């Protein structure tokens, strides 16, 4: 297994920012710090947390997330830059955990601010789906009996 350092990658300017983190974080502190320099009238946020059970319904001990160092960062960076070219009032903040994450701990934080609520919500959802399907991240679930790689994405819930 490959292990990676905490990374902080501001892209170009203050408008796009993402981090890949190996330690847990306080999402509200992150939001608050970020919004201090990105105040807009419409601000949408998402926090994804580790579920307490695995894909088979067993109690989860921890989740492991692996990425492909370099490629993962580049994919995210290119995608976020593409979005921000389409829509010039957007500010985006994405934070993603890797490593071992325990039940209820945050895995992902997304913040998008814009002049209009429809724009902020639309891009927040796009970025969230992007991280689920298009970015090199893999999940392994550890229970008290063993571990197994997750074979497919969690669905939207509908």
């Amino acid at each position, binding site marked *: *297994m*490959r292990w990676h350092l905490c990374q902080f990658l501001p892209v170009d300017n203050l408008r796009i920012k993402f981090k890949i983190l190996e330690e847990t974080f306080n999402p509200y502190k992150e939001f608050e710090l970020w919004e201090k320099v990105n105040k807009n009238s419409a601000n949408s946020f998402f926090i*994804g947390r580790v579920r307490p059970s695995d894909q088979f319904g067993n109690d989860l001990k921890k989740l492991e*997330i*692996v990425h*492909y160092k*370099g*490629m993962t960062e*580049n994919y995210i960076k290119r995608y976020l830059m593409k979005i921000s070219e389409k829509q010039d009032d957007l500010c985006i903040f994405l934070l*993603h*955990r890797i490593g071992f994450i325990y039940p209820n701990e945050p*895995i*992902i934080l997304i913040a998008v601010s814009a002049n209009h609520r429809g724009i902020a919500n639309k891009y927040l959802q796009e970025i969230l789906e992007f*991280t*689920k*399907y*298009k*970015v*090199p*991240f*893999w*999940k*392994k679930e550890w229970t008290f009996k063993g571990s197994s*790689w*997750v*074979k*497919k*994405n*969690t669905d939207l819930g509908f």
Partner: protein
Amino acid sequence: METKKSNKIKVVLLSSIAEDLGWDEKFLTIEGSQMKVFSVWNLINSNLPQDNIIVSINQEITDMDAMINPDDEVAFMPIFTGG
């Protein structure tokens, strides 16, 4: 006058593929100047099914028919399973 050209490629395996084959990084010597990704896969693969495998050269997604040059990094990974 010329720097001697390497004839090595770096092979990277990720996630369950690394676990199944028991390693995650290896350097291979290639015959000639180029090689298909598919040939590398055959070379390293024990008996994993080829379906649903994502392939990248130098961290850009490509396919099994793409050509690998010396000093390239080729990676094999299962489908992404998100955050």
